[in-house]
């Protein structure tokens, strides 16, 4: 690979990451706030207390701002698929087509139809139908996320498909295998519940600011109770779904798990690191100690990954160089099988042109047998199979640490709320306010772990990122990178300014 190619790949990846980062800035609040609004409106319908209506309308306004500014930012990712990732788009096309089409037809339709009803229908529709619309917006938003996350999960665990050597595309064998793969289910549940936590933190933070300013006190206190309970329940769900995700990663993406823990040498009864610092001099090929220091829970990684505290967890070195004792073959073997697979595809293509059916069948059989290692054919340097360990390790541990901090915050806020002492606890209100950006940080770090951790693969074991990019000039990708940076930064500033203005105005009393 030439230096120019490397630069093109890095800029293409950077551009995609930038777009996804900005897009994901808007999404979690939409997913979570929609349910918080639906809950407060349900309480309004049940109690008939007008204060709950004011609360619902206020959060609905902030939801509207976030939705309006964030809507369609994800479309740019689709533009990038066609331009920067054209080979990848072609190869995965049929897999992505079905889930995204379902999203377009059902989820987006549901969401956009009921959003209008929700905003325009307060005085024109029955209370029950209005509430129904609000719940439909919440379900529609989350359903939209489902299909995109299914597509993303498939890239990590390409189930329910077959590669057609004539069209060079993956074709779906079973929709349910794609949509209901354990990877997809866990990814969806983990992502939406983490988004609920982001929204809960947002509501608590904004309400805390009102309490600090002694404004809209009753509205703020009620909002805090709803958001704390919602956030706490979502956090508990995150712990369960996070455990499910880690289990799936251990089974299907052991390299990602090893990077998450900075585990170079596999261990029986491996511990889970609670706090640690990596040694930057550590590489796969040297014998440096991977950590400057670490505090770990003994046997926990083995238990979480394999449901057995004494299980062997392969490290990066085991996955690269193999470990005969535990039946882990060296990556070099997979590279050799990958080359056989690519060669068989080439032979199949040549035999087809020559009209040699017997040779076609032989080549096809070899190709199908070796296809699970197809993507390894493109690697000569084994170390390129290792993701950026430091980035994955720190992102994972900061995310998990923040997750537990949020649980604690929800509990403390709830405790003082029920004791009627929350407003006196200025330190806690300030802490809650400054936790808003930490919610977003944790959510973004989750994506860093998921996406950087599966490098170098665009599709796990099948297509490396560097084979997925289009042949564009680096200058063209750089230009669009900075265009996006400008456009999305303007949108972000607009969002924050309008949100802050609306928060300062407060709910209509």
């Amino acid at each position: 690979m030439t230096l120019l190619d490397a630069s093109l790949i890095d800029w293409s990846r950077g551009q995609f990451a930038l777009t996804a980062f900005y897009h994901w800035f808007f999404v979690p609040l939409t997913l979570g706030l929609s349910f918080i609004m639906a809950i407060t409106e349900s309480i309004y319908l049940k109690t008939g207390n007008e204060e709950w209506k004011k609360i619902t309308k206020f959060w609905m306004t902030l939801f509207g701002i976030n939705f309006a500014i964030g809507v369609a930012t994800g479309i740019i990712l689709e533009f990038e698929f066609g331009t920067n990732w054209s080979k990848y788009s072609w190869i995965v096309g049929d897999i992505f087509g079905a889930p995204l089409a379902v999203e377009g037809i059902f989820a987006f339709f549901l969401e956009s139809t009921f959003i209008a009803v929700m905003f325009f229908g307060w005085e024109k529709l029955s209370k029950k139908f209005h509430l129904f619309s609000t719940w439909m917006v919440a379900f529609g938003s989350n359903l939209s996320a489902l299909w995109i996350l299914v597509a993303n999960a498939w890239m990590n665990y390409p189930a329910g498909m077959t590669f057609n050597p004539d069209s060079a595309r993956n074709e779906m064998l079973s929709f349910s295998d794609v949509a209901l793969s354990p990877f997809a289910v866990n990814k969806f549940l983990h992502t939406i519940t983490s988004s609920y936590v982001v929204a809960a933190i947002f509501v608590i933070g904004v309400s805390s600011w009102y309490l600090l300013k002694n404004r809209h006190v009753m509205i703020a206190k009620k909002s805090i109770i709803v958001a704390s309970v919602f956030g706490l329940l979502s956090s508990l769900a995150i712990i369960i779904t996070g455990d499910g995700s880690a289990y799936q990663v251990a089974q299907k993406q052991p390299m990602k798990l090893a990077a998450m823990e900075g585990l170079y040498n596999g261990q029986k009864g491996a511990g889970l690191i609670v706090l640690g610092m990596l040694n930057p001099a550590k590489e796969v090929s040297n014998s440096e100690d991977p950590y400057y220091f670490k505090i770990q829970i003994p046997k926990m990684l083995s238990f979480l990954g394999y449901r057995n505290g004494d299980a062997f967890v392969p490290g990066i070195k085991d996955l690269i160089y193999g470990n005969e004792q535990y039946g882990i073959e060296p990556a070099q073997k997979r590279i050799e099988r990958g080359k056989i697979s690519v060669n068989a595809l080439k032979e199949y293509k040549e035999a087809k042109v020559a009209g040699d059916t017997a040779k076609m069948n032989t080549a096809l059989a070899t190709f199908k047998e070796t296809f699970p290692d197809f993507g390894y054919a493109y690697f000569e340097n084994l170390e390129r199979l290792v993701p950026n360990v430091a980035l994955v390790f720190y992102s994972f541990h900061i995310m998990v640490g923040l997750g537990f901090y949020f649980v604690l915050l929800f509990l403390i806020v709830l405790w003082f709320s029920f004791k009627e002492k929350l407003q006196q606890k200025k330190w806690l209100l300030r802490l809650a306010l400054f936790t808003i950006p930490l919610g977003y940080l944790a959510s973004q770090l989750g994506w860093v772990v998921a996406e950087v951790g599966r490098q170098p693969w665009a599709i796990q074991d099948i297509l490396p990122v560097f084979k997925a990019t289009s042949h564009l000039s680096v200058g063209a990708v750089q230009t669009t990178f900075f265009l996006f940076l400008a456009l999305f930064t303007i949108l972000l500033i607009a969002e924050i300014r309008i949100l802050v203005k609306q928060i300062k105005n407060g709910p209509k009393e």
Partner: protein
Amino acid sequence: MNYLKKILLFYVDGFRHLSTLGKTLWIIIFIKLFIMFFILKLFFFPNELKNNFDNDHERSNYILEQLTKTK
């Protein structure tokens, strides 16, 4: 028909009575969509395979050629 008219009027009335904030958000949405579809998509994001090849057969052949190159 009467039902459809009611739905239409519901939307028309809703848009007619938009608040200042609502109008601002719609302006932002339209500007954003214009930039995305009429500037970015047209001038910066051509579909590489669609533009460079005439049909799916040629596209498949190109992809297969790329996939069978390991160097």
